């Protein structure tokens, strides 16, 4: 049973009042970006109205307040993730993609050399593939892929073989296309048993279930604020403190130094070493409010509720279209989240999304920045619906109504 009221959550989201093509918005694109609660918008507004100044070093009142907002968000994020080393393990970035680039360019460039292997999976987002290919080009590393089985899950039957020469395993906690939830704890054990580290793409997972970094026993985690009810322009790289302290700076400039002279520079210690230039400050106020909002609902409650929604949608999709609408992903809710990719027979995903838009339904057509996965299943694109804590069964009603229209129209 859910212990929060999703209708009240929806009431907290100003954008839910939009009318699209004469119909109330049916927002099913939380996998791309979540909608923003009023409290998050107000926290950023309050910051600009009352506290705005540049962070660090200022001695006046508002500069201190801005620094408190920024560093407070670091503390709040560390607690949210149960980060073993606390706030000094939280690096703020622009988004999850930049977090992966930071990981590759800093840790990867310093720790990996020709022949070392980074093991990713076929279901990764390009953000967890391209930076490693770039490191392959510059440092001669090998990028290897864990295959995805016909059951839409990682095929780890040959994992021992795949682990040969691996220095880093970098996988997603939840696929942004399939909805598949990967066994991160088990993969961490395998990685560590082989002397490798493990990085996790948490972009699709952190807002939809609880994340306990102590229990997961991983080494790096990347995610974006805007997929967890927070603002755009802010992401996080969490890294275990003993590793982070050895990583060289990524971007150079103000805020990341200990000292600069005409002869050179020395880098600051702690996460600020990776935060050159004025960071997104208002956005961290928004992130703190988003975490407070999510925890108010309860991460386990959110996971349970979205599982219900997903189960209902999967059941009805299987029943209502005589096989003309195929779900590209696990067919039951075991080990999967609320991301549902659809392949509609005879209707291109862009046309599906276009027809759905007429019903006010927001879904995403395309390859979802996961082209290797698309190729694996012989698809150019899918139309993807994804849930958030403000989603309702009635959203699925409208989705099915609109899908039925698309199927008939292109019949």
């Amino acid at each position, binding site marked *: 049973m859910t212990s929060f009221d999703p209708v009240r959550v929806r009431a907290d989201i100003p954008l839910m009042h939009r009318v699209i*093509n*004469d119909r109330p918005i049916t927002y099913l694109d939380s996998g791309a970006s979540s909608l923003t609660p009023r409290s998050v918008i107000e926290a950023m507004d309050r910051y600009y109205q009352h506290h705005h100044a540049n962070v660090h070093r200022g001695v006046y009142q508002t500069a201190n307040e801005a620094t408190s907002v920024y560093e407070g968000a670091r503390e709040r994020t560390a607690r949210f993730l149960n980060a073993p080393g606390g706030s000094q393990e939280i690096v703020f970035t622009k988004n999850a993609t930049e977090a992966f680039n930071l990981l590759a360019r800093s840790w990867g460039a310093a720790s990996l050399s020709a022949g070392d292997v980074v093991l990713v999976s076929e279901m990764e987002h390009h953000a967890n593939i391209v930076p490693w290919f770039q490191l392959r080009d510059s440092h001669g590393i090998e990028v290897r892929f864990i295959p995805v089985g016909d059951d839409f899950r990682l095929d780890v039957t040959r994992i021992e073989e795949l682990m040969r020469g691996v220095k880093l395993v970098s996988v997603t906690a939840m696929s942004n296309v399939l909805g598949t939830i990967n066994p991160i704890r088990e993969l961490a054990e395998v990685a560590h048993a082989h002397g490798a580290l493990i990085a996790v793409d948490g972009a699709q997972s952190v807002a939809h279930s609880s994340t306990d970094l102590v229990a997961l026993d991983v080494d790096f985690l990347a995610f974006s604020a805007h997929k967890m009810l927070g603002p755009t322009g802010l992401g996080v790289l969490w890294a275990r403190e003993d590793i982070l302290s050895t990583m060289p700076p990524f971007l150079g400039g103000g805020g990341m130094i200990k000292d600069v002279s005409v002869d050179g520079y020395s880098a600051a210690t702690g996460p600020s070493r990776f935060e050159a230039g004025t960071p997104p400050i208002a956005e961290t106020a928004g992130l703190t409010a988003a975490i407070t909002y999510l925890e108010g609902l309860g991460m386990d409650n959110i996971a349970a509720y979205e599982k219900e929604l997903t189960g209902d949608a999967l059941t009805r999709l299987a029943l209502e279209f005589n096989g003309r609408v195929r779900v590209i992903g696990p067919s039951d809710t075991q080990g999967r989240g609320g991301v549902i990719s659809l392949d509609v027979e005879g*209707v*291109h*995903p*862009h*046309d599906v999304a*276009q*027809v759905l838009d*007429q019903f006010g339904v927001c879904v995403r*057509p*395309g*390859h979802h920045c996961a082209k290797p996965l698309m190729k694996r299943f012989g698809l*150019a*694109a899918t139309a993807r619906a994804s849930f958030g804590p403000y989603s309702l069964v009635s959203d699925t009603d409208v989705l099915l109504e609109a899908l039925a229209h698309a199927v008939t*129209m*292109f019949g």
Partner: protein
Amino acid sequence: MANLDDLYREIILDHYRSPRNRGELGPPATRVEGFNPLCGDEIVVHVLVEDGVVTDIKLTGHGCSISQASSSLMSSAVKGKSVEQVRGTIESFKRLMTVHESQLDDSARERESVEANADGDLRRLGELAALAGVVKFPVRIKCATLAWNTLTQALDESEDDVH
């Protein structure tokens, strides 16, 4: 409000379901691939130009209904026409696909002339005019123009071969 029926006219759905001139042409025909990396639409144009006339055209590829119907309609419209006529049709079609933006940006006088021009184009374009509604859906314009840009490139290449 842009209506779905403006986009998915019956003739477009017909060309999507039963595309014309599907297939390939071997040498000396020119083959050019067109690709839209954003949505994955792909169109391969095979065009045979003899004595300044497009004597044959074949298409392969995959993508959304707009990109595929547009390429099919295009193939029917240009087959057997002189290269000069074809280039004129391409120009008219592309103007049709940009009318919307001009209407948003330009002054009333310019808008009138654009519309007059567009009306003339619509008459000249015949069946192709069914695609006119695409301009009301700006993100789909690139779907409609993909085949035409690819054909332009194919004509350029075939003329390079001659000279």
